[in-house]
């Protein structure tokens, strides 16, 4: 039977470990050990912050768990109890601003994204295929399109002006990064670049240039 006394959940810069209220310490320890050995390589070489939620633990139990976890991964900050609860609530209730530019949650979308379809994700979005006119990609972080962008792409939709849009072939109806909105110049017949380009915001102006 699958042991569900402990639930691991990824979060920014670390792991949230939810302990089902009413679980006994033995099954908690076992479950954590099992889960860690499954995902050991995932944590290789990174410092992982831990947040415990759910059942309140005795101080001695806390130390035991930390010991177990530290054999497998390098631990950064650890939160038990109230402080964690507060942060946990923040994560869910307030829509927080996704700040990952170099790393973060990413959703992969199999294209084409057709007219009327809207992909919304609070992290980064990678589209494998085209985004057709009338299709929309809204991401909290960066957007990468392995194909042609003919629709709308909005990177940094939760306010992250540092995010970028990279695309193999830019023919968008509109692109937006953070609060900046831009559309292709009118009247200019497409000079089609055959190389990938990157869009980003520089001094409040949206710039598109070849990926170097």
């Amino acid at each position, binding site marked *: 039977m699958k042991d569900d006394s402990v639930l691991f959940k990824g979060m920014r810069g670390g792991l949230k470990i939810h302990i089902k209220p009413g679980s006994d310490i033995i099954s908690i320890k076992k479950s954590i050990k099992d889960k860690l050995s499954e995902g050991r390589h995932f944590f290789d070489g990174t410092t992982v912050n831990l947040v415990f939620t759910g059942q309140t633990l005795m101080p001695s139990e806390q130390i035991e768990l930390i010991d177990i976890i530290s054999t497998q991964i390098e631990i950064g900050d650890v939160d038990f109890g109230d402080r964690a609860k507060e942060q946990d609530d923040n994560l869910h209730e307030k829509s927080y601003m996704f700040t990952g530019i170099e790393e973060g949650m990413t959703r992969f979308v199999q294209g084409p994204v*057709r*007219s*009327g379809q809207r992909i919304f994700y609070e992290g980064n979005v990678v589209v494998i295929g*085209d985004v*057709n006119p*009338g*299709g929309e990609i809204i991401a909290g972080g960066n957007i990468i399109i392995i194909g042609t962008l003919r629709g709308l792409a909005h990177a940094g939709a939760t306010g992250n002006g540092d995010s970028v849009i990279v695309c193999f072939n830019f023919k968008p109806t509109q692109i937006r990064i953070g609060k900046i909105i831009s559309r292709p110049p009118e009247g200019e017949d497409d000079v089609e670049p055959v190389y990938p380009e990157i869009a980003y915001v520089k001094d409040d102006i949206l710039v598109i240039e070849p990926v170097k």
Partner: protein
Amino acid sequence: MGEVFVITSGKGGVGKTTTTANIGTALALEGKRVVLIDADIGLRNLDVVLGLENRIVYDLVDVVEGTCRLRQALVRDKRFEGLYLLPAAQTRDKNAVSPEQMQKLCDDLKEQFDFILIDSPAGIEHGFKNAVAGADRAIVVTVPEVSAVRDADRIIGMLATNDIPNPLLIINRLRIDLVKRGDMMNIEDTNEILGIDLLGVVPDDENIVISTNRGEPVTIDEDSMAGTAFRNIAKRILGEDIPLMDLDEEDTFMDKIKRLFGINKNRKN
């Protein structure tokens, strides 16, 4: 066991009804038992295009409401053996039928016919959902215009969410002279956006207007380019491997002479 095709487009006026009538006729000419369902309740046209308007006694709504038996509502075509029409009701609207009822209807018809072609109404609302409910496959009709291609794209996405993947595309009303001048989207432009299998390309042909008004599908006109295109499409549906017509080729002077004398029955396209 028959196969149910829905013919749809999103945008209105691209030739769904004409396409349905002509593919249906061409399949019947190939000896198949075919029923055409007009799912455009309240705005029925398919009966007019087929010239069967004055033979309608019962309609689709009568069937699903149990006013008549299915057999009674089917209108047999006056010219082609094996071709039947299930007309839409004109005095009702789309809400008179539910997707479940359509599904049941299609299942019943499958037992009696080789092909069931459903002429979908324009739009993406209730009428569209009715039309696709019983369908196994879909044929998306578009014309080489940006707005029509956009709507076709939307429809392809909606078909996928209705469990009809891999629809087939018909590009209707292509004008080769405009394409050559670069004033119309060509087949490649359309394909690039939609990215689905091309079932056929129907050239713009004034014979369509004439035959549609007369209630005679253009398919029976051996000399019409559009008629040939529709016959080819029907053969492709039947699994024959027929290359796309070479629309690029202007008729030579000799072809025109031959056609004048009616000895050009076996043109290569």
